[in-house]
């Protein structure tokens, strides 16, 4: 493995408090090291005039697994005239646009300087599928969050207030699926969807199970803190995408009050609310639909135990996909395009619907503004992360465009005023009145340091401190001479000049140079022996699952390079 000295770049590392200082970064044996640790044979990379950051960390993206693949299969048109021609020597063909193939996913994230991506929703029964795809996604390290929020074991344990049993089961499921965190999607609502129903408030009882979404959320926070997991619960709240839903969102967020984090991995939150854009809507119809980003962020800003990600709408044609089965059915009723659905026994569901966010559709433009407002109203960028809920609000390769909008008022104003219904969009949002422009340091917080901390992986990712994984991105943009044309910002972040992954130069100016082994991270939590839970698992598999318990856990060969995060709460 080579040694590299990345010289004279403007370095942004919020973890070390380095804010654009001109300095050097050294790589050796796959890690970041002190520059003094290098031999004289180190390759020198001249980064003068460029921006240097740690490899990017994506906290929420749908890139691997059953519903993502349904999105690919469902949409041949997503490939037609939209796939680039293969160029590199080491790469595979790169097909697809809003739902790219695994190969294209790995390459495009790498080109943007990302080194870790969290797959946002893994149906436990289909975990082998998720892992097969992650194995086939080159270069980037990954982990996946099993979906818990409608799982029958959990519904029964929490209904009876059995946090310990739920924790024992959750730990077992995490290990069986080689999962990373507790994902919760439309708690209770997706189980209701088994009957074609939904829970749109946090007080709607779940049919048959007689528990409310509010009780599920609180129970899962308690489970998560009992297990001391690296990440908090990762919540997609009820009532996604509906006008007026910000009240549900605020009510949901208030459930976290009084809880504090119990984890040795450095996170400060007990609840992560994902794609907050979809949950910050005012009005009571699409006619008077408006932004409530300010109201929601005023609350988030006061609550240190919350983190959020944006879920920015990018005004593209895309493919929506979520374990929120009833939402996809509802969306399909609005746009009447094709609709795929997969309900998963005892666990969850998933829906997929293509969606066109039209630039001249008022509602879409308001959604676009809300995503940006959430970032611009945020006071703590270490708790506010850049996502598009890929591919739901837009494809991940638009992150650089979002960075442009956040860093340049001029660029977002130009777009805002070009809308057909600009006046109405301005009236329904706050965006035009916001002058804030994000700094490079804030971008580094939102795309690296912040998500790494919230996920509990800040000991490996998100910083350039010596000892960290050797993941570095060098962008061809000079913070002391910002380009007059904001589009140059997007260009620079879309195709990093140099990208290093575990100390290997994997990409240069967008060309893929190498595909070194990538890691699958998962959490193995050791809990006290629990005979009841063991019996419950055995019984449910015998009676209700359609697969054999023996064949359920993900086998090691599906995750060839594992980095297991070991926890022992029996100690």
């Amino acid at each position: 493995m080579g040694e590299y000295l990345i010289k004279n770049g403007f370095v942004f590392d919020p973890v070390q408090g380095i804010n654009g200082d001109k300095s050097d970064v050294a790589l050796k044996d796959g890690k970041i090291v002190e520059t003094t640790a290098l031999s004289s044979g180190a390759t020198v990379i001249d980064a003068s005039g460029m921006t240097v950051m740690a490899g990017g960390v994506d906290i929420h993206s749908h890139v691997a697994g059953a519903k993502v693949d349904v999105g690919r299969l469902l949409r041949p048109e997503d490939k037609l005239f939209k796939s680039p021609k293969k160029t590199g020597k080491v790469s595979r063909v790169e097909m697809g646009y809003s739902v790219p193939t695994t190969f294209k996913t790995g390459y495009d994230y790498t080109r943007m300087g990302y080194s870790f991506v969290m797959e946002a929703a893994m149906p436990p029964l289909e975990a082998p599928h998720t892992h097969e795809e992650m194995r086939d996604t080159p270069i980037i390290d990954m982990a996946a969050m099993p979906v818990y929020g409608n799982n029958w074991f959990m519904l029964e344990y929490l209904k009876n207030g059995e946090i310990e049993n739920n924790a024992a089961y959750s730990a077992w499921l995490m290990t069986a699926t080689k999962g990373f965190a507790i994902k919760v999607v439309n708690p209770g609502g997706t189980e209701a969807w088994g009957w074609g129903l939904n829970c749109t408030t946090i007080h709607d009882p779940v049919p048959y199970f007689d528990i409310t979404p509010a009780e599920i959320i609180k129970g899962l926070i308690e489970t998560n803190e009992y297990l001391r997991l690296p990440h908090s619960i990762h919540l997609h709240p009820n009532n996604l995408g509906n006008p007026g839903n910000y009240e549900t969102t605020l009510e949901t967020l208030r459930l976290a009050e009084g809880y504090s984090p119990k984890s040795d991995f450095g996170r400060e939150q007990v609840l992560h609310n994902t794609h907050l854009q979809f949950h910050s809507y005012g009005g009571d119809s699409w006619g008077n639909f408006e932004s409530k980003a300010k109201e929601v962020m005023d609350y988030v800003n006061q609550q240190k135990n919350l983190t959020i990600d944006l879920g920015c709408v990018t005004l593209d044609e895309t493919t929506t996909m979520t374990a929120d089965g009833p939402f996809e059915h509802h969306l399909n009723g609005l746009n009447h395009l094709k609709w795929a659905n997969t309900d998963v026994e005892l666990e969850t569901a998933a829906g997929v619907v293509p969606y066109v966010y039209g630039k001249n559709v008022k509602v879409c433009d308001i959604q676009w503004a809300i995503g940006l407002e959430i970032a611009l109203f945020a006071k703590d960028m270490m708790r506010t992360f850049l996502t598009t809920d890929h591919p739901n609000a837009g494809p991940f390769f638009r992150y650089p465009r979002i960075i442009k909008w956040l860093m340049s008022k001029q660029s977002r104003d130009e777009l805002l005023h070009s809308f057909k219904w600009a006046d109405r969009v301005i009236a329904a949002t706050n965006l035009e009145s916001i002058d804030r422009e994000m700094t490079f340091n804030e971008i580094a917080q939102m795309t690296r340091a912040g998500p790494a901390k919230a996920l509990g992986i800040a000991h490996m990712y998100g910083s350039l401190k010596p000892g960290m994984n050797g993941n570095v991105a060098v962008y061809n943009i000079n913070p002391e001479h910002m380009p007059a044309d904001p589009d140059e910002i997007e260009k620079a972040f879309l195709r990093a000049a140099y990208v290093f992954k575990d100390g290997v130069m994997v990409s240069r100016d967008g060309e893929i140079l190498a595909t070194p082994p990538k890691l699958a991270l998962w959490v193995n939590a050791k809990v006290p022996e629990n005979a009841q839970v063991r019996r419950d698992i055995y019984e449910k598999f015998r009676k209700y699952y359609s697969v054999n318990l023996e064949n359920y856990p993900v086998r090691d060969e599906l995750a060839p390079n594992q980095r297991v995060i070991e926890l022992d709460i029996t100690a």
Partner: protein
Amino acid sequence: MAKVITGVGCPYCGASCDDIEVTVSDDGTKVLEVKNACAIGNQVFHHASTPGRITSPRLRQPDGTYKEISYEEAIDRAARILVNAKKPLIYGFGSTNCEGMSAAGRVAEKAGAVLDNCASICHGSSFLAIFDNGYPSCTLGEVKNRADVIVYWASNPAHAHPRHMSRYSIFPRGFFTGKGHMGRKIICIDPRVTDTARVADIHLQVQQGHDYELFNAFRTVLHGGDIPDMVAGIPKEKILEAAGIMKKARFGTVFYGMGLCHSDGRNHNVDIAISMTRDLNEFTKWTIMAMRGHYNIAGPGVVWSWQFGFPYCIDMTKRDLVHMNPGETSSVDLAMRDEVDAFVNIGTDAGAHFPIPAVQHLKKHPWITIDPNICMASEISDLHIPVAVVGVETGGVVYRMDNVPIQFKKVVEPAGGILTDEELFDKIYERMCELDQEA
């Protein structure tokens, strides 16, 4: 001491049962007893350890006989054939694991080949309908736990998927379906009086080739419209009765089979079946599922969608881009037009399934068969490479008809040290890379 292996997956039909118990000989080479499997599944396990298996590759000689050759030579010949061909076709994958499909995908991309699977002559029309209309579906356990109405349309699981009705649909007692069979209504729609029709509560004996009209009638009735006294050979009151049951279901599933895909209307039949399912979701919960034939024939559609973005008919001859256009890039059509100049038949029997003129065209060029067994394809090939029987001699991931991944187990060692599909394709790939370097 014989050894009992539990939780074994069955490499026969799309029901992909994984509750088989297999007893193997002490030395781990022979299957002695198989429990829980249907009669055909039982045979698949026993067949693998029948004496007389082909264990080394065979090369056709000028006098028409086969001569045994080494794997090394077979791999070299296969690699050269693929490197030299302008438009090779790699087709089949009815009987292999996802590891094999993935390895073959890499070879096909390197060779600039067309990559296709049995769906091309089977449920391909389902893919066309799904591209247009979507696929509201569920896993089989959902059916078991929730469904109170089951429709088998143009499918006959009693014969094609022997344990489907007992494991997933009609008979099992699930969480919300504790009464099992007693709590479910079964509707069978089929022009024949099949064994499935015999266990149904209602059998609508649709006129052969008129399924589309009958679906249309159902949709009309569901939306409150009126229909003629007789549609597709079924009296109006029968249609009203069945539609009423479907509308009142708490959870229903339509299982449809090849009778829709391969009778007049084809993809349009599946399309309107999906539309009917969508309509029913305005009233209650309904899902639809294709009765996929083989234990892992859903696999190539899954694996290649994540690798190439398309489930079948994958044309990589442009090398830097992939395109799919069934009719143009589908195996039988390519062969009928004589566009293919090398053919790899893997895990299926194109010799038996393709039209004779297609086979005659393919026969003009090098033909490689990769299959554990002797079949029509292996007997007309230029090169036959035997491989391990998936589910018996090697494990791996397979996708059940509901796209649920099942991790299959190996129960005995591969006979005579033969390679798995994955190993074979990986070696062919490496050899192709070497030939590249030499050139």
